[in-house]
C-alpha cells in the first residue's frame, strides 16, 4: 500500500510537469482512432496526440465503409475534424505501420501507443470454388464503390449476368444490395466513386439474393437499413412466408431483443405486402433464409468464372450459448445460378510484427484495452504503454457510436495506468519530433491534416460540377499529388 501511494505521488508529480508532455500515438484515423484521440486530449492536458494512418485521407470507414447514400452518418467527420485541428493534435497520413515504421520503433518514441487500425482483411468460407472469378469480399466491393485507393481498379463484372448472390444478411450485405438495386439516378447525387457509378449504370444485375444461414429472427441487420432496402422504388421483394413462422426458441430470442422484434415485424409486413410476382423487367430482391453456402459452381462457357452457388438447407439447433441458436446442415441442396457473388461474412484484422494476436478470435488479446502478451489469461502480461481500440480490440461489429464507448474504456485504462505508474515510462520521449525525423530519413512523405484539407477542397469542387457532395479522388498518385500542391 505504501509503495502504491508512493508511485501514485510520483506519477502525479510527473504528470503535473507540463513541460514534459505525454507523447501519445494513435494508429488509425477511423472512429476508434479519433474518439481515442479526442478523449485523450480531454483527459490529459499534458498529452500531445499524433494520429497516423496508412492512407493520405482520414476517417477510416466513415469515408470508405459508410454507404454513399448515408450522408447523415458521415456528419461525425465534423467532430473528428475539430479534434484534428486541436493544437495538441497532429495527423500523419500516408504513414503505414509495418512498412513506414515498425511497432517497436513507435513504442520507443511514444509513452502511449493506441492501435486502432481496424480490420482490413476478410473472413473466408473455406469452401470449394471460392477462388473463382466473380466472387468478391463485401469489403472490396464497398471499398470500390466508396473510392478506396486500394480497390479503385477492382472493376467487378456487372455486365455478364442478371443475378447476384450476397452471402450474409448484415448491414453491409444490405448496403450492397441497395447499391446494386437502387436507381442509379439516385446514387448519382451521392459521393459514390465515379468509376462505380458508371459501372452500376451499365450493370445488368436485376435480381439479388440475400442469403442467411439462419432465419428472419436472427437476421443481423438493423431496422434503418432494412427499411431502406425494402423501400427501394419499384422493387419486387420476395420473402417466403413459411420462413417467418417462429419456434418457441425463436420467441425466446425475440422477447429479449428489441431490434430483432422490429426486424421480424418489418420482414413480416414486407412478406404480405406487394405483388406475388415481379412485373417484366422489374428489379428483384429475394431474402433466402436457412441456407448455407456449400460450394461455388464454375462456368462451363467462361472457364474460371463463377456460374452459381450450391446452398445447403439448414435447421436451427440450440447452441452452447443459452438463448442462441446455430444453423446446421440438413443434407438437402439447392443450386442458385448467378454471375456475381459478394461474401459479406465478416471482416478480419491483420496483425503487425511484434503485436500479440489471437488468431482464433482475430483480435489483439487485451484487458479493457491494455494489450496482453498472449491470449492465455493465466500467462498473459500487460504490454507496457500499448493499447488497442475499435475492431482490433473487440472484433468487427457494432456501429460508429460503439467506438465512443470502446475509446472511453481504453482511455480509462490509460489514465489508470498513468495514475498508478503501472504502464508508462517516466523518461522523456521524442514523440512527434522523433516521428518526423524517422519519416524524413526514410523518405516517407507524410500527409498532414492541412494537406488532407486540400484533397477535401478539391473533391468538393469536383463534386459541385456534377451536383455531388464530393467527387472522391480514388487513386494513390492523384491523392498524393493534390496533397503536395
Amino acid at each position, binding site marked *: 500500500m505504501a509503495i502504491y501511494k508512493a508511485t501514485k505521488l510520483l506519477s502525479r508529480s510527473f504528470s503535473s510537469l507540463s513541460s514534459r508532455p505525454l507523447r501519445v500515438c494513435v494508429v488509425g484515423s477511423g472512429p476508434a482512432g479519433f474518439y481515442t484521440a479526442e478523449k485523450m486530449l480531454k483527459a490529459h492536458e499534458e498529452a500531445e496526440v499524433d494520429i497516423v494512418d496508412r492512407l493520405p485521407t482520414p476517417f477510416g470507414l466513415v469515408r470508405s465503409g459508410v454507404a454513399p447514400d448515408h450522408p447523415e452518418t458521415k456528419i*461525425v467527420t465534423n467532430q473528428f475534424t475539430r479534434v484534428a485541428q486541436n493544437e495538441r493534435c497532429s495527423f500523419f497520413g500516408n504513414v503505414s505501420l509495418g512498412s513506414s515504421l515498425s511497432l517497436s520503433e513507435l513504442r520507443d518514441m511514444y509513452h502511449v501507443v493506441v492501435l486502432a487500425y481496424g480490420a482490413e482483411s476478410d473472413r473466408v468460407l473455406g469452401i470449394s470454388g471460392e477462388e473463382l472469378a466473380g466472387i468478391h469480399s463485401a469489403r472490396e466491393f464497398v471499398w470500390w464503390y466508396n473510392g478506396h485507393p486500394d480497390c479503385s481498379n477492382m472493376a467487378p463484372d456487372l455486365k455478364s449476368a442478371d443475378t447476384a448472390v450476397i452471402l450474409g444478411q448484415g448491414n453491409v450485405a444490405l448496403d450492397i444490395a441497395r447499391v446494386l438495386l437502387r436507381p442509379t439516378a439516385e446514387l448519382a447525387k451521392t459521393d459514390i466513386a465515379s468509376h462505380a457509378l458508371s459501372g452500376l449504370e451499365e450493370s445488368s444485375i436485376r435480381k439479388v439474393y440475400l442469403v442467411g444461414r439462419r432465419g428472419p429472427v436472427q437476421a443481423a441487420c438493423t431496422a*434503418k437499413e432494412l*427499411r431502406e432496402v425494402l423501400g427501394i422504388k419499384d422493387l419486387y421483394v420476395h420473402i417466403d412466408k413459411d420462413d417467418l413462422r417462429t419456434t418457441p426458441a425463436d420467441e425466446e430470442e425475440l422477447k429479449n431483443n428489441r431490434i430483432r422484434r422490429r426486424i421480424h415485424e418489418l420482414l413480416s409486413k414486407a412478406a404480405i405486402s406487394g405483388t406475388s410476382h415481379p412485373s417484366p423487367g422489374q428489379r428483384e430482391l429475394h431474402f433466402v433464409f436457412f441456407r448455407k453456402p456449400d460450394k461455388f459452381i464454375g462456368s462451363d462457357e467462361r472457364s474460371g468464372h463463377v456460374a452459381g452457388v450450391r446452398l445447403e438447407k439448414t435447421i436451427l439447433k440450440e447452441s452452447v450459448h443459452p438463448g442462441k441458436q446455430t444453423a446446421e446442415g440438413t443434407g438437402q441442396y439447392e443450386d442458385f445460378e448467378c454471375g456475381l457473388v459478394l461474401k459479406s461474412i465478416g471482416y478480419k484484422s491483420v496483425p503487425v510484427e511484434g503485436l500479440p494476436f489471437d488468431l482464433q478470435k482475430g483480435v489483439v488479446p487485451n484487458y479493457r484495452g491494455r494489450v496482453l502478451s498472449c491470449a492465455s489469461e493465466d500467462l498473459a502480461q500487460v504490454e507496457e504503454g500499448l493499447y488497442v481500440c475499435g475492431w482490433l480490440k473487440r472484433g468487427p461489429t457494432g456501429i460508429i457510436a460503439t467506438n465512443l464507448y470502446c475509446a472511453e474504456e481504453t482511455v480509462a485504462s490509460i489514465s489508470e495506468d498513468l495514475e498508478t505508474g503501472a504502464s508508462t515510462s517516466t523518461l522523456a520521449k521524442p514523440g512527434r519530433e522523433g516521428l518526423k525525423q524517422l519519416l524524413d530519413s526514410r523518405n516517407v512523405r507524410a500527409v498532414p491534416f492541412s494537406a488532407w484539407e486540400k484533397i477535401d477542397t478539391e473533391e468538393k469542387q469536383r463534386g459541385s460540377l456534377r451536383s455531388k*457532395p464530393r467527387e472522391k479522388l480514388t487513386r494513390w498518385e492523384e491523392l498524393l499529388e493534390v496533397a503536395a500542391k
Partner: protein
Amino acid sequence: MKSATGVAGYRLKVTSFTIFDSVCSQYLTFFSPLASTPRRTCLHAVQNRFLLPQVALHLFLQRHEPFSTTAADKAQLEGNEETKKISVTFVDKDGDEKHINVPIGMSMLEAAHENDIELEGACEGSLACSTCHVIVMDIEYYNKLEDPTDEENDMLDLAFGLTETSRLGCQVIASPELDGIRLALPAATRNFAVDGYKPKPH
C-alpha cells in the same frame, strides 16, 4: 417539428428560434473552420433569416433548399422571447445535476451543447446516430412527448443502456408542458462489455 435540408445537403432538425446574439454567433462559427467550440447547426439563422444581412442570406440560401415556416413558429418568433424558457435538469453519469433554462423550440441536444453538458451529437441532430440518447427520468414527462417516429426508434434500437423512457436528445424539443423535465445521461460505459469479455483481477 420538421426537417429541412441543411449544410451540404444533410437533413437537419429545425428548431424554432433564438435571440439575435445567438444567431450571430452561430453564423460566425459556422463560417470559421477553426472555431474551437462545437456549434451544431446554423439553422437558427435560417429560420431567422430576416435578421441576417443580405449577403449572409444569399450564402445560406445556396446551401439550403427552401422550406416553409409554420404559423406556430412565426407566432413564437413574434412573441415575448424572454419569458418563453423552460427549466430543464440534466443528471450526468455520476448523478450530478445541472439546471438550465431552455428556450421553447430548442432541442435538448442543442441546449446541452450551449450549456457545456457532455451530450454527444455525432450526426448533429440528423437522426442518423444514437449518441444523444437521454433518459426521461419521470414517466409523466415522458408521456407528454409525442411518440418517437420509426426513424427515431431505429436509432434508439442501437442506443447503449436503452430504457423504457429513452429518447434522442435531438428529438426532444422544449415546449411549455415540459417545464421541469429531468433528463439523465446514460452511464453507458458501465454497461459496456465486449463480447466474450471476462472481468479479471488486474
